[in-house]
C-alpha cells in the first residue's frame, strides 16, 4: 500500500471548510483560567524539593566534594554529586550530556552543577547547599571563542582534535571542527564581479528567554521504573538520552510532558531532569526541581555567539557572482551548536553559482549552547543581508529589486544538494514590494531596512494514534510536543479530513509509554509532520467506516463513498439508503467489531522550504544611541495557513525576539569568567512598550507534497530580523552597524567615530 508520503499530494481544487479558519484553541480555556498544568505545577504525595549547588568558577579542577554536613541536616533526604552518575567516557555523546548535567573532573563554566540536595522543603535544601564543601583548583579560563582559538589559550578538554582539517594533527585544541562548503569556482565568481564588498561582523550569545524556568518531578520506583513529569519540547528524546546517560532501559523511563511555558529550542535538551531522577533514586521519594531565573541564565541555553567575515561580489546590473564566508561559532563548553546550518542556509534563497564557506566551531568556558529558532542562521544572515545592501547601494539599485534579481526559483540546486521544488521566495518579495509599508515614503528622521531569510523546514519521525469513540467524537494522541498551539491546527486538519466540526476532535499529549518515537519539536516540523500522520490516521479510519457501512447495507465496499463526514451509497445504489454519519456507524458497530482506530508511525519527508522578507522603520536617538522600532512588517510564505491567527502569532513573536537580539540582548561576562547579567533586570528582553504592532502578510505558495499545502512557519520569522533592523539603522545614521546587539553604547561609538 502506498503511504501518505507518496499519495497525498496537494489538491488546489479541494474545497476547505475548516482549514484556513480561526477556531479557539482547545488548550486556550485552561490557559486563560489558570488551570493549565506547566512543569512546576505537578505534585506527588511525599514529594521532596531538590536544589543545585553550582560552580562559582569558570574553569576549575574539582579536587573533592564533602557532603557530610549537608547529609546530616534534618530534613535532607539525599545528596548527589558526580559519583552518583554512571561513568561515561569524555568526548562521547553520553559523556558530554552527563557532564552538562553534573560536573565530573572539572567545573567548566560559571553555574556548572557540582552537587544537588533533596529535602523536605526548598528552604532546607538551600540551607544544605551551603554546608557542602567543594575543594576547587582554579584554572585559567577563556570566554571569547576567538581567544580560545589562539595559541597558548587554556585547553578545556584533553580529547578534542579538530575534525575536518586538510592536514589532520594530534594537537589538543579548543576548535572542535572545521567545515568547508562550496559550489562553483569562487575565484572565477569574484573575477566576474564589478563590485566587491567584504566586511567583518560579530554577535553575542542571547538566551531563548522562555518565561517558564525548567521544572520537573521525578519518581524512581523500587522496581527501577522512572516516572518523569517535565516541561520539554522533546519527551521521547529526553527519555532516550536519559536512558543513555543513566544506563536505564528506555522502556523503564516514562516521560510525561507538561504544558510548555516557552522553549524556542531551549527545552530540546535536559538540565535538572537527570539530577532529579538520581536524587529520587537515593531518597526513594519523588523529587521536584524548578530552576530559578538566575540558574536558567547561568546554566541553560544560550545561542551561539559568532565572529565572521562575509565577502560578496556583483555585476553593475546587480547579479551576485560570488559569495564567501569565514565563520567562527562559539558552542559553549561542549560541541553541538548545529553550526552547519549556517553555511547551508546563509545564502540559500539566492540563485548563486559560486560559493565558498569555511566554518569553525569552538569551545569556551560558557554553558553549552542550545537550539534557538533556526539555530546559528539569523546571526549570520545579519551580515549577509548587510553586504547585499551595500552592494545595492554601490550600483544604485533598490534593495528589494536586488533580491528579486537574484532570487532562487524552482529547480535551483542548493549548496547542501537539494534541488528546490516549487518555492515562494519570488512571491514573497513581490508581496513585500506591493505592501503598503514598502510603498509608503520613509518618515522624516527615520531609516528603513529590509532583510530576507530562509529555513529548510523539517519533517522527521512522527507517531500518532486516532481513536473514534462510539458517539463519533475523535481522540488524537500525539507525542510531538505542542510549543505554541499546534494542537488546534492538527485537530483542524483531522476534522477537515473527517468532515466533522473541529470541536468533535480532541488531542491528548502522550507520555512516552503510549506511542512510538517522536522527534523533538524543532525546525518548524510539528504542524507539518503531525498533520501528515493525522491525515493518514483519518484516511485509515475512513476506510474502516466505508467497510462497516457496506456491511450494514450489504453492498460492496466500492459502492460506498465517504463525503462530508458521512458514508453514502454510490453507483447503482445511490439514493437507496439514508447516509450514515460517523456516529451512526460507530454506534452500531463498535460492540460487534471493536473501536475504529488508526496508528501511524513514519519518518515524514517533503517539508517545503520557507522564505520571508521583513520591512522595518527605525528612529535612532543620536544623543543616547537608543533605537526605536517605529513600524514593522513580516512577509512570509506559509504554504497554506491552517489557522491564520496562529501563523501571524509565529511571525510576530519571531520578529520581536529578533528585535531583542538586534537591540539589547547579550550575555555579559566579567574578567573573572562569571556571568554578570543573569536576571531579567540586567538581561533586557523587549517589553510591550518597546515595540509597535507587527504587521503581517501571509503568502501562500502551496507545498505540493502536503495534503493541505502547508510549510512550517516557526523558524523563518526570526531569521531576517536583525538584518532588516541593521539595514534600517544604517540608513538612519549613515553607517551600517556590524556588531550585535546594536545597543546604545555601540551605536553611540559608531555615530561618534563615523566619517559621514
Amino acid at each position, binding site marked *: 500500500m502506498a503511504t501518505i508520503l507518496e499519495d497525498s499530494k496537494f489538491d488546489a481544487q479541494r474545497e476547505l471548510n475548516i482549514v484556513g479558519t480561526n477556531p479557539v484553541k482547545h488548550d*486556550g480555556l485552561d490557559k*486563560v483560567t489558570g488551570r493549565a498544568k506547566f512543569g512546576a505545577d505537578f*505534585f506527588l504525595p511525599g514529594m521532596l524539593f531538590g536544589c543545585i549547588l553550582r560552580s562559582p568558577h569558570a574553569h576549575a579542577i574539582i579536587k573533592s566534594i564533602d557532603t557530610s554536613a549537608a547529609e546530616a541536616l534534618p530534613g535532607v533526604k539525599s545528596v548527589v554529586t558526580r559519583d552518583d552518575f554512571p561513568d561515561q567516557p569524555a568526548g562521547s555523546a553520553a559523556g558530554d550530556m552527563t557532564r552538562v548535567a553534573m560536573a565530573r573532573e572539572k567545573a567548566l563554566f560559571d553555574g556548572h552543577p557540582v552537587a544537588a540536595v533533596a529535602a523536605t522543603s526548598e528552604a532546607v535544601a538551600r540551607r544544605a547547599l551551603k554546608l557542602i564543601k567543594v575543594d576547587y583548583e582554579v584554572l585559567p579560563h577563556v570566554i571569547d571563542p576567538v581567544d580560545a582559538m589562539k595559541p597558548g589559550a587554556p585547553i578545556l578538554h584533553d580529547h578534542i582534535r579538530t575534525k575536518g582539517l586538510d592536514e589532520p594533527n594530534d594537537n589538543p585544541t579548543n576548535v572542535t571542527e572545521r567545515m568547508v562548503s562550496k559550489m562553483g569556482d569562487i575565484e572565477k565568481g569574484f573575477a566576474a564581479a564589478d563590485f566587491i564588498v567584504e566586511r567583518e561582523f560579530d554577535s553575542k550569545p542571547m538566551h531563548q528567554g*522562555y*518565561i517558564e*524556568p525548567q521544572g520537573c518531578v521525578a519518581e524512581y520506583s523500587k522496581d527501577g521504573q522512572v516516572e518523569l513529569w517535565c516541561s520539554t519540547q522533546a519527551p521521547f528524546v529526553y527519555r532516550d538520552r536519559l536512558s543513555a546517560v543513566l544506563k536505564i532501559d528506555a522502556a523503564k523511563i516514562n516521560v510525561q510532558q507538561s504544558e510548555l511555558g*516557552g522553549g524556542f529550542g531551549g527545552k530540546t535538551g535536559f538540565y535538572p531532569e537527570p539530577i532529579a531522577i538520581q536524587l529520587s533514586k537515593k531518597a526513594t521519594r519523588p523529587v521536584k526541581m524548578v530552576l530559578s531565573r538566575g540558574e536558567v541564565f547561568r546554566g541553560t541555553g544560550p545561542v551561539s555567539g559568532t565572529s565572521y567575515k562575509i565577502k560578496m561580489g556583483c555585476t553593475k546590473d546587480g547579479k551576485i557572482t560570488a559569495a564567501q564566508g569565514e565563520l567562527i561559532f562559539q558552542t559553549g563548553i561542549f560541541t553541538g551548536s548545529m553550526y552547519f546550518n549556517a553555511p547551508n542556509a546563509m545564502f540559500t534563497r539566492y540563485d548563486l553559482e559560486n560559493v565558498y564557506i569555511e566554518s569553525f566551531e569552538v569551545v569556551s568556558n560558557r554553558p553549552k549552547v542550545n537550539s534557538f529558532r533556526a539555530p546559528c542562521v539569523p546571526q549570520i544572515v545579519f551580515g549577509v543581508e548587510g553586504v547585499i545592501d551595500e552592494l545595492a547601494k554601490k550600483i544604485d539599485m533598490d534593495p528589494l529589486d536586488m533580491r528579486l534579481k537574484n532570487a532562487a526559483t524552482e529547480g535551483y540546486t542548493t549548496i547542501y544538494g537539494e534541488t528546490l521544488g516549487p518555492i515562494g521566495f519570488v512571491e514573497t518579495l513581490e508581496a513585500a514590494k506591493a505592501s503598503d509599508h514598502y510603498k509608503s515614503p520613509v518618515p522624516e528622521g527615520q531609516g528603513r531596512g529590509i532583510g530576507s531569510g530562509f529555513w529548510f523546514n523539517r519533517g522527521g519521525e512522527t507517531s500518532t494514534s486516532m481513536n473514534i469513540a462510539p458517539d463519533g467524537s475523535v481522540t488524537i494522541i500525539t507525542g510531538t510536543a505542542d510549543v505554541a*498551539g499546534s494542537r488546534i491546527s492538527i485537530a483542524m486538519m483531522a476534522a477537515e479530513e473527517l468532515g466533522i466540526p473541529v470541536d468533535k476532535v480532541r488531542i491528548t499529549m502522550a507520555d512516552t509509554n503510549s506511542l512510538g518515537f517522536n522527534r523533538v519539536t524543532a525546525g518548524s516540523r510539528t504542524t507539518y509532520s503531525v498533520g501528515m500522520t493525522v491525515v493518514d490516521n483519518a484516511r485509515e479510519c475512513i476506510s474502516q467506516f466505508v467497510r462497516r457501512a457496506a456491511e450494514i447495507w450489504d453492498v460492496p465496499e466500492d459502492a460506498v463513498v465517504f463525503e462530508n463526514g458521512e458514508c453514502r451509497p454510490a453507483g447503482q445504489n445511490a439514493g437507496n439508503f439514508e447516509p450514515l454519519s460517523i456516529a451512526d456507524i460507530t454506534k452500531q458497530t463498535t460492540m460487534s467489531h471493536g473501536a475504529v482506530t488508526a496508528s501511524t508511525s513514519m519518518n515524514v519527508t517533503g517539508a517545503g522550504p520557507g522564505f520571508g522578507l521583513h520591512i522595518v522603520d527605525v528612529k535612532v536617538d543620536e544623543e543616547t544611541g537608543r533605537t526605536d522600532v517605529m513600524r514593522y512588517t513580516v512577509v512570509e510564505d506559509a504554504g497554506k495557513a491552517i489557522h491564520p491567527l496562529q501563523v501571524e*502569532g509565529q511571525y510576530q513573536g519571531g520578529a520581536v525576539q529578533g528585535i531583542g537580539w538586534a537591540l539589547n540582548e547579550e550575555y555579559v561576562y566579567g574578567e573573572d569568567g562569571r556571568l554578570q547579567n543573569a536576571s531579567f533586570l540586567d538581561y533586557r528582553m523587549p*517589553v510591550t512598550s518597546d515595540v509597535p504592532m507587527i504587521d503581517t502578510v501571509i503568502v501562500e505558495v502551496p507545498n505540493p507534497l502536503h495534503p493541505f499545502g502547508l510549510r512550517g512557519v516557526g523558524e523563518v520569522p526570526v531569521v531576517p530580523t536583525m538584518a532588516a533592523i541593521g539595514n534600517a539603522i544604517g540608513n538612519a545614521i549613515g553607517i551600517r552597524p556590524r556588531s550585535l546587539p546594536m545597543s546604545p553604547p555601540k551605536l553611540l561609538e559608531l555615530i561618534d567615530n563615523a566619517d559621514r
Partner: protein
Amino acid sequence: MVKKAHVTTSVNGDEYEYLCEPGQTLVDVLRNELELTGTKEGCSTGDCGACSVMLEGELVCSCLVLAVETDGKSVETIEGMAKGDDLHPLQRNFLELNGLQCGICTPGVLIAAKALLERNPNPTETETRFWLAGNLCRCTGYDKIVRSVMAAAEEMRGA
C-alpha cells in the same frame, strides 16, 4: 528552624488559614501551600510579571510580597477571574483573538490588564503598552495581547 506564622488571607473571596515561614513569598504560598498554581513564577525578582495578583485592589508581583503581609487582607488571582462558566471579557477576547501562545505569562497578563481597565476603561494603545510593560511575553510579540485587551475594553464600555 524559624517558627511558622499563622496567617489568614482571603483569596478570591475564600478565607484561607495557613502556616508559613516568615520569609515565604505570597507566590510560594499560593502555589505550594494553597495549591492555587494558576499564578506563575518566572523570575522571583519582580521583573517578569508572571506572578501578578491583586492585593487589596492593587496590582502587585506576588514574588515581592511576603505571605505574612497578607494577613487579614484580600488577594485576587487568575482562578477568581471567571465567575463559574462565565469568562471575563478579557479572557474571552484573549481566546478569540489568540492573545496567547504557550500561556505561561497569560494569567499575569490578564490580572494586570484587568487592573488597567478598572482604572482606565478606555486606554489608548500606548497606555495599554506602558501598563503591560511589567509583563514579559516571549511568544506573541505582544501584538495580539494588546489587541485583545483593547477589544475587551471596547466590549466592556459597550456593556
